[in-house]
């Protein structure tokens, strides 16, 4: 039934074609995933370097080695690189691209050329954004709030244009995934038999398609304001800076769910496999992914409780924000319930999954403080918020991302990574992360504001502890990436189709998969997690 294709010949997808040109013009989703790996890991290291520089600078209340402007630029670059170039493309583009067609029994994504185009969008957009460094960097914070971003002499236009182009990478990936999930499922694979990682990619794709265009038009208006001098958000002409915040957060809050829902999908897969037990409440987890992506469009106002938004709007947003917390709580309970009466094994992916469970639970409950109106008035724009979103983004999205990377590593590269060092890196990141961000919660509740280059002496001990923690978490992640890169080239060869004993489709084909994924398309008979 699968018609033979002219240019697929022996060997797996990595060595079936040689030469850089064959990689740069590939339309094979697995190769595009590896190309995303290189780009995303490079930017993760650069962003992480900026984070360590920031923490080093904040070791003492007085400036250490940066001026005010330099600190603002490093702070903005850390934010922009991590958000636009690492976490938003991270799980969906890298692991989604690799695993989606394999898990639904398809030969490739629906629009392979579009898939390659979204990789180029990310690379070109990132190049444009990085060009801003040559014109003095950007010092507006990754949120580009007007009127400061309209007036700042820095090269804001470059980063904004870069983010605009990278937005297309996100939109095209979203379109690709929705059509693939709808049209290319293997025979017998109904929607309710889809693995939960596919459900999470589907929910994420909906957000990517609906929310990213609004960011596109917002950034375009900001570029017009800076280049043509039309002052749409400029208060001198009566423009309303709070309107920019509405536009920006209408995208950026669903964007934080683009970051976390795919990671949740990976956690469902990893916990089911490493507990060797059927996932608990399959329907509940699948529908809560959709519920989160639906409600996420109605909650953006909780970023603007104190920004001049009307009190009434704040109250409505406060209640809706609490509602978006409920599906997340349901997922957490279902994951822990999956471990009940299972056969739990603590390999590296499972350790990262447990990192996710613990850190993301803290991230979730601290969200309650910020969603309660009166408490947010006190805690808004303090280090409490910084710690909250690092717990959800780094503790949640990135831990899920690394769990997925280690989980699919044998299938992607056909080699094993060093298991012992993997576990060490999981523990190091957990310890270092908590040492970095628990003190920030305490500082934040005492009123230490965000984005401060010099601060009040009373907060010095907390900053010091946080800086020490940042060294440990940086070492942990560098070790994790080192293990993966070394494993790719020197790891023990893995030809076993199903090293972890999982029941989803991607483990039925050989390691690493051939160009067309399956020699013949499997037919699915039961639900995805049938661990009898």
């Amino acid at each position, binding site marked *: 039934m699968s018609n033979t294709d002219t240019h697929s010949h022996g060997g797996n997808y990595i060595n079936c074609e040689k030469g850089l040109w064959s990689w740069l013009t590939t339309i094979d989703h697995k190769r595009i995933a590896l190309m995303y790996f290189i780009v995303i890991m490079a930017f993760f290291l650069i962003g992480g370097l900026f984070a360590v520089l920031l923490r080093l600078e904040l070791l003492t209340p007085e400036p250490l080695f940066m001026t005010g402007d330099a600190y603002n630029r490093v702070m903005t670059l850390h934010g922009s690189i991590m958000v636009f170039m690492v976490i938003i493309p991270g799980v969906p583009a890298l692991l989604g691209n690799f695993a989606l067609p394999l898990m639904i029994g398809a030969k490739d994504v629906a629009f392979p050329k579009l898939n390659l185009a979204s990789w180029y969008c990310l690379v070109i957009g990132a190049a444009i954004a990085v060009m801003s460094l040559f014109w003095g960097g950007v*010092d507006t914070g990754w949120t580009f709030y007007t009127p400061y971003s309209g007036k700042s002499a820095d090269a804001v236009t470059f980063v904004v244009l870069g983010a605009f182009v990278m937005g297309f990478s996100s939109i095209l990936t979203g379109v690709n995934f929705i059509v693939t999930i709808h049209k290319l499922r293997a025979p017998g694979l109904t929607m309710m038999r889809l693995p939960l990682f596919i459900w999470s990619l589907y929910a994420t794709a909906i957000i990517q398609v609906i929310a990213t265009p609004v960011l596109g038009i917002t950034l375009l208006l900001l570029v017009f304001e800076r280049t043509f001098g039309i002052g749409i958000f400029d208060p001198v002409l009566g423009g309303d800076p709070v309107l920019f915040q509405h536009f920006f957060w209408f995208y950026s809050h669903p964007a934080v769910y683009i970051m976390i829902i795919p990671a949740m999908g990976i956690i469902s897969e990893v916990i089911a496999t490493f507990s060797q*037990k059927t996932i608990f409440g399959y329907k509940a987890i699948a529908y809560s992914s959709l519920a989160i992506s639906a409600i996420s469009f109605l909650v953006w106002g909780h970023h603007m409780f104190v920004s001049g938004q009307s009190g009434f709007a704040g109250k409505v947003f406060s209640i809706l924000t609490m509602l978006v917390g409920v599906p997340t709580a349901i997922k957490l309970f279902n994951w*822990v319930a999956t471990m009940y009466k299972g056969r739990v094994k603590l390999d590296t992916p499972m350790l990262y999954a447990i990192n996710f*469970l613990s850190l993301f639970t803290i991230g979730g409950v601290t969200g309650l403080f910020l969603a309660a109106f*009166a408490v947010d008035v006190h805690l*808004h724009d303090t280090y409490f918020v910084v710690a909250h979103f690092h717990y959800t983004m780094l503790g949640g999205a990135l831990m899920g991302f690394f769990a997925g990377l280690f989980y699919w590593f044998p299938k992607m590269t056909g080699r094993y990574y060093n298991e012992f060092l993997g576990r060490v890196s999981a523990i190091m990141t957990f310890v270092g992360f908590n040492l970095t961000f628990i003190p920030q919660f305490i500082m934040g509740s*005492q009123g230490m504001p965000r984005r401060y280059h010099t*601060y009040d002496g009373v907060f010095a001990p907390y900053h010091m502890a946080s800086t020490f923690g940042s060294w440990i978490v940086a070492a942990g992640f560098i070790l994790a990436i080192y293990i993966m890169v070394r494993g790719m080239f020197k790891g023990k060869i893995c030809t076993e189709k199903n090293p972890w004993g999982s029941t989803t489709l991607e483990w039925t084909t050989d390691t690493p998969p051939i160009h067309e994924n399956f020699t013949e398309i499997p037919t699915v008979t039961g639900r995805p997690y049938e661990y009898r």
Partner: protein
Amino acid sequence: MRFLGDILQMLFGFSLPEQAAENVHLVDDLYNVIMLLSIVGFIGLMAVMTYFIIRYHRSVNNKSAYIPHNLTAELIWTIIPTIIFVGIAIWGIIAFNKMETVPSNAYKINVTGKQWMWEFTYKRDNLEVNVADVMYVPVNVPVVLEMTATDVLHSFYVPSFRIKRDTVPGMKTRVNFTATKKGDFKIFCTEFCGTAHSKMRGIVRVVSQERFDQWLNREVKEANISDPVELGLRVYSRNCATCHSTGTNTIIGPGLQGLWGSERAFENADKLVADAEYIRESIISPNTKIVKGYPAKMNSFAGLLTEKEIDHIIEFIKTLK
């Protein structure tokens, strides 16, 4: 609720700043309740998870059960979190409403946030007094702040009063509090506003009513003194002090000591002797002549300073030998 705060403080050091205004206990009580619920929830979930990992580890248990779902359990952990979360939201809204209602006899002070300093304007029988960085406030008197900004977004935040509101250029925002404790309380700017965002701090000085009236009378009297150098000092302290020192050291801009009559070298113009015309021009449009080695960071003060005030500054700079 008070004992709850003390227990938590003892346990986790999550001490909130001191309670120096009315209605602050509302925020602290809700904060402590959420903290308690979070700690109980988190430790509970982690304990159950750890128990499952140890009890059902692969080395101990070799047969995993087939439990696809359990309706009662799922209903419980859907309904209970919804009730708790929405309950917290409603409590937060009620607390906000109470903090938000402005009593009718509130004393009005105008706050203006400008790039990297706070300015407060008091009205006393149709006379306006501008004060920088330190805001005097009578104790146990409800105060309402009507705030705006002149250039970019700032945010007026006093942790001890648990109040915070952005100051938006072109828009009036208000926040109100009733100070209950005397003393100095820190003001922070919490909306990113550029180079010296972290230096934009001030103090709320809560004093007794008599002490406040005495201070205000002195300020009003000072407001209409005639000596230009004295006035020049006042204008300098309110607008220029953050970036230019009266000595020779650089804060962000060049120091002003010995400026009058000295020769100035520029990045984009040829040298000239500093005179009244040069000082006036560098206040109105600073970027036409940028002193060598300094960034073009200064905003124009056109429209912010009257001609008279610029004259006073020039007189004041003349005295800086």
